[in-house]
């Protein structure tokens, strides 16, 4: 078992104003058009309580039968300026990552939006199937390496 820390930033520029961009986060109908499970997934669940202390749940089963769950909690919402939330990812009911995310909406010189998405993630390495299959292989090979090292030094 291990934890991998990883931070990343994604930036986007939109012609629409920060107010309009914010609306696409806050309005459930608009939000679902870009923040949704892929077509063809089953057992889908979705709920949104867009306020500080509220959260979002987004879950479904992919065509391979794996269950994916995203659940978040909003820590700060400043209309048309920023959204701060923390979220868990679960694969087949097992926690795979916990992240703190900030979304900043800045007005650019043309009146559009400069969106800055920053995430601080803790990725839990003890993954459930399917990734565990490869992880299991890696552990097996680590074990072989250790065995071989002993074999040679003995």
């Amino acid at each position: 078992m291990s934890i991998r820390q990883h931070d990343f930033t994604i930036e986007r520029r939109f012609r629409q104003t920060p107010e309009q961009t914010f609306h696409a986060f806050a309005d459930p109908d608009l939000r679902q058009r870009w923040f949704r499970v892929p077509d063809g997934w089953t057992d889908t669940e979705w709920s949104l309580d867009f306020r500080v202390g509220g959260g979002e749940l987004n879950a479904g089963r992919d065509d391979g039968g794996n269950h994916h769950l995203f659940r978040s909690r909003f820590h700060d919402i400043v209309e048309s300026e920023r959204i701060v939330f923390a979220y868990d990812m679960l694969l087949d009911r097992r926690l795979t990552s916990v992240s703190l995310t900030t979304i900043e909406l800045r007005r650019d010189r043309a009146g559009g939006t400069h969106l800055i998405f920053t995430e601080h993630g803790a990725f839990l390495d003890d993954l459930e199937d399917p990734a565990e299959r490869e992880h299991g292989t890696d552990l097996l090979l680590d074990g072989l390496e250790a065995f071989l090292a002993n074999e040679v030094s003995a």
Partner: protein
Amino acid sequence: MLCYGLRVAIAAPQQLDDAFHALADSNRRAIVARLTRGAASVSELAAPLDVSLPTVLQHLDVLQRSGLVRSEKVGRVRTCRLEPGPMRAIERWIADHRGIWERRLDLLGDVLDDAFPTTKGHRSK
């Protein structure tokens, strides 16, 4: 969902077959064992083995095709090292995780263009 990219991390069964085939030889196991202690040149790998250099190169070829070992040539020296398998899996997973957010924010741009059409300027990344 953030996790659906995870499925690319599944190892091909062929990869496992190749790895075990590569390790089914005592000289190749000795090479792998040596590399667990760090990178080594071909001549360093060949020195403790009681086989010819062309045979060592053949063994290295099998190990490289299995994905267990990679090598790079700098000048006249070829340096070999083990592939960090566990690292590969998690790095790929994190890259997928980021990729899902990138695609999602691209989709947000499409939704904004549809919901709030504008004619001036251009959307850029």
